[in-house]
């Protein structure tokens, strides 16, 4: 069902008030892949994601989707191609899972148009894909953190977009739920070819799940490419100001970053560092 879309930025400059957060950024999101954006706190990751999804107007440059400028596209048309899950979305008090997921159908509905069979199918498919069918009649505020995040992803799926942007979908989740959510997103990408762009905090999870890794430092592009090329000791030093060693992840074969602090370092590595 996916046609490949191209999303890219050209000389993109972003900021709030007097502060410039992202400066003259050129990057391209590869279609049909999982792209993960990493960087230190306040380096402009979330700002970039907000701008890709039209939430924030650029100071300069532009965001281009299939040759058209995102900020000039009709809102609903864009929302049928590109979905976004913000970092902390708000659920109205007492709303049920079914109602919440149904709201993802908004861009497909006209002013007074009635609910159609295909809307039901989209909602059911989204519930199934996120394994939240059993929760359908529960109130969202009663759910656990992991369940709630799956429900929000279901809402974004019901939107049936070929591009899905997520701002730190794993924050506030424990280790097993983090993996569960990322596995779910990988399923989406593999099964339906959905292009996924997300911001992640955890470098190692990013390297594990990304097809394409983008490292930002101070609002500029430091490196972009496959994790094996991007996640180097040099990158960690520049982006996070942290000494580290990169080894091969015995589970996935992807790079794994081990931080070197001031303590608990074996004599041998300390010597090696000197």
């Amino acid at each position, binding site marked *: 069902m996916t046609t490949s879309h191209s999303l890219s930025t050209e000389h993109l400059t972003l900021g*709030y*008030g007097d502060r410039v957060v992202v400066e003259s950024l050129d990057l391209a999101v590869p279609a049909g892949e999982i792209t993960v954006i990493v960087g230190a706190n306040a380096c402009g990751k979330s700002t970039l994601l*907000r701008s890709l*999804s*039209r*939430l924030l107007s650029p100071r300069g440059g532009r965001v281009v989707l299939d040759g058209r400028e995102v900020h000039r596209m009709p*809102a*609903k*048309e*864009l*929302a*049928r191609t*590109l*979905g*976004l*899950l*913000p970092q*902390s*979305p*708000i*659920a*109205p*008090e*007492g*709303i*049920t899972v*079914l*109602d*919440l997921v*149904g*709201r*993802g159908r*908004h*861009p497909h*509905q006209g*002013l*007074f148009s009635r*609910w159609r*069979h295909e809307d*039901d*199918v989209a*909602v*059911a*498919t989204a*519930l*199934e894909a996120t394994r939240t*069918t059993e929760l*359908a*009649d529960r109130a969202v*505020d009663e759910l656990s953190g992991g369940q709630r995040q799956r429900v929000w992803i279901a809402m974004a799926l019901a*939107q049936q977009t070929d591009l899905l*942007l997520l701002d730190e979908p794993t924050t506030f989740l424990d280790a097993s739920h983090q993996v569960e959510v990322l596995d779910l997103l990988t399923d989406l990408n593999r099964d339906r070819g959905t292009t996924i762009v997300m911001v992640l905090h955890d470098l190692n999870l990013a390297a594990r799940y990304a097809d394409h890794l983008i490292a930002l430092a101070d609002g500029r592009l430091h490196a972009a490419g496959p994790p094996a090329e991007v996640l180097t000791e040099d990158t960690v030093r520049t982006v996070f100001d942290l000494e580290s060693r990169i080894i091969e992840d015995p589970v996935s074969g992807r790079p794994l970053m081990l931080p070197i602090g001031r303590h608990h370092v074996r004599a041998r590595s300390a010597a090696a560092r000197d």
Partner: protein
Amino acid sequence: MSAPAAARSPKAAVRDLDSVVRDVARGRRRRASRRLLVMLTLAVLVVAGFAVTLMFGQTFYPPRDVVNVILGEQVPGASFTVGRLRLPRAVLAVVAGFSFGLAGVTFQTMLRNPLASPDIIGISWGASAAAAIAIVSLSLGGTQVSALAIVSALAVALLIYVLAFRDGVAGTRLILIGIGISAMLESVTSYVLSRAAEWDLQEATRWLTGSLNGVTWEQTLPALAAMAVLTPALLALSRDLSMMQLGEDTASALGVRVERTRVLVIVAAVCLIAFATAAAGPIAFVAFLSGPIAARLLGTGGSLLVPAGLVGALLVLVADFVGQFAFDVRYPVGVITGVLGAPYLVYLIVRTHRAGGAL
């Protein structure tokens, strides 16, 4: 053996999805029918309340007389009492209640806060202060009062909006600035009323708490017209509005043009409030209470606009009837609805305490 199994499993998956689709559709229909049932019940109650208000009073008129008066026939006694006194009053009760309820729930939904209704954040005070000044200080009447009230309510709303604007409007700031403005307008209103040549407590309470006493068609018709025009306008925006409950980012990601929707919604709701206030005063707490009551009856799934309007109409009808006839003194409707607010606040405490929910 393995071949049929392989053939069955994808089929099973398809059947599975179909049954989920059926469940989803059934759940939706169940909700829709409950919604319809509640709305019909409310509508029936409003009609019943309307009929009772027309029939009962100092003298009782049977339904036949009332219908004849409405049809325009001359009925001795009833033509005056029902046609000139009770009918405009009952119509305004429904119109004002519906307008306040609808506009109130619109603001509460948009600002995602059940306490943030237009009577609390100062919009009603804009209309009320202007009306009080127009009548008491400038000795105006009729349409001039309505016009001034509407202009002033819109101006106050615009002022609140402009003052709250800094990198986009944050709901929180908008509410607090509204509270500040309303404190100022309230004191202006009290001052104007206290300087009236003859201190008319009834007239004062109209502009401080709302009243339907002495209502004529001249006051009722503009409010009715406004309701007829603005209700469909707000309903057309209701879907975008319910997306905004999910937060501005999510709503925007779902294709809602947040800032544009917000401006349109505010203008429509403020006009509703202004026309109703110009006719009946800021009937206390109707805008504040209708939305939460409707939500309680319906759940939070669908749009609450029409149900809240119906609840508002019912509230005003009943409160006005009670205020007129239940006590030795005739209380204006706003005093009765305002008094209802106190137990509601206590109820909020008790419920939140028990459920541990959020306000």
